[in-house]
């Protein structure tokens, strides 16, 4: 599936929830189900520090694709992180750079990407794009 198709899939998953409580409960469920990442990734250099919640992000580049490994200490953020990974992990730099995480807006959780929330999520998206940009340049040089 393309990034866009997965985003559409997520939007549809959330469209069933009428109550905001259910939406958040689902995010918490996704966050809870996410396998914990290895402690070796939870290091200072991987930390995207928001004021409120912490997000760790690690990347691996193999066969032209970037694999992201990430986690947050807050469950709602962790749920959103899981969704971001579903969309952006194991993609080529080009795919990552050309796509915006529009699903967040469409499932009515736009506030979580606003810079004022300082929850590390916006910084995570930026960081993923930066990695994509860097790997795209490295690939072009080869």
């Amino acid at each position, binding site marked *: 599936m393309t990034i866009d198709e997965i985003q559409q899939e997520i939007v549809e998953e959330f469209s069933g929830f009428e109550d905001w409580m259910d939406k958040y409960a689902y995010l918490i469920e996704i966050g809870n189900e996410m396998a914990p990442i290895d402690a070796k990734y939870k290091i200072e250099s991987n930390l995207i520090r928001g*004021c409120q*919640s912490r997000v760790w992000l690690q990347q691996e580049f193999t066969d032209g694709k970037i694999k992201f490994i990430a986690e947050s*200490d807050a469950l*709602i*953020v962790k749920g959103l992180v899981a969704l971001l990974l579903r969309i952006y992990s194991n993609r080529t730099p080009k795919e990552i750079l050309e796509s915006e995480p529009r699903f967040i807006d469409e499932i009515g959780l736009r506030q979580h990407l606003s810079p004022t929330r300082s929850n590390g999520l916006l910084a995570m998206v930026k960081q993923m794009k930066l990695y994509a940009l860097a790997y795209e340049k490295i690939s072009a040089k080869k």
Partner: protein
Amino acid sequence: MIPDISKIRKDFPILDQKVHGKPLIYFDNAATSQRPIQVIERMDEFSLRTNANIHRATHYLANKTTEAFEASRETVRQYINAAEAAEVIFTHGTTESINLVAFSFGEAFINAGDEVIVTEMEHHANIVPWQMMCERRGAVLKVLPFNDNGELQIELLDSLITNKTKILAVAHVSNTLGTVNPIREIILKAHLKNVPVLIDGAQGAPHFKIDVQELACDFYAFSGHKLYGPTGIGALYGKRKWLDKMPPYMGGGEMIDRVTFAKTTYNQLPYKFEAGTPNYVGAIGFSAAIKYIQSLDRQAIIAYEHDLLTVATEKLKQIEGLKIYGEASVKAGLICFNIEGVHPFDLGTLLDQLGIAVRTGRLCADPVMDHYGVENMVRASFAFYNTFDEINAFYKALIRLKAMF
């Protein structure tokens, strides 16, 4: 007498609104309190009819503005019972007030090897300015710790103060633990060893009557926006004997006596410390806020706020897995807590969906987070316009949200 809270709430139109479809419950008063209509109208009226720069011109509006600004200073003086209006300096807020003292007192009185004492429970605004000054002057910052109840270990103070101690800075009320510190006792102990004391009154001035002469503190710093006034205005009270000997903090207009390229002489107090055009609209709003508070039955309000805190604490303690940080015997205004297994950010996000505004995060007090070994906390902070019904709704919301995790 029990204050008529429903009547008081009518003075705060902002409280009467829905957030995410739910009635707003505003429990973030320690961050900023709301302003009564009397403050908003006074500032609007001033901007509409009077505005002109102060102390500078002979025209009608300038004179009216200057009068209003100096009358505001007098209102603040009365509120804290300073000996003279010249001991009241208008600043941007508590942070600037403390920075002013750290800089100017440091320049005048602190040298290499000298010591400054702060406490472990201070807001960053009462730590970092002292650290910066200590680095500049080669002085040493020492820390008075608190116990797990959130009470300062006063018994350590006598040994902490040495003949090198030049100043001690402490919060009146902790912005995280809610502890009302025994500042009278601290001031007495410090004064016995000739150490002046600065009180960070950001969280104290909103909840108590302040009498700086009775306290005998050397400096008292507080903000307008936590006292039902506007942002960007605050005050520094300082004893004249110190302020006279301290060099200016910032240079500019108004703070000078005479400027030549060879040498500039400085204006008298308080103008020496008020460089540039001050926030006179803010000062006028600040004064209106103080007058508003003074129009209420202050004793009754203080007692009511105490009851709110007591009831909230009792309620929260009923929730299994909820830990309150700071259980000092005397507290005011706020409760910090965490619920086991629930990240404060998640809780804050969900409370917001229920129309309840709380603060979450590190609360500008990293050392307090470190003391308890936590990354974040949730803080509910109260004002006299809050109600027991709101506390009940908050309690029910916590029970409901806790079940989601």
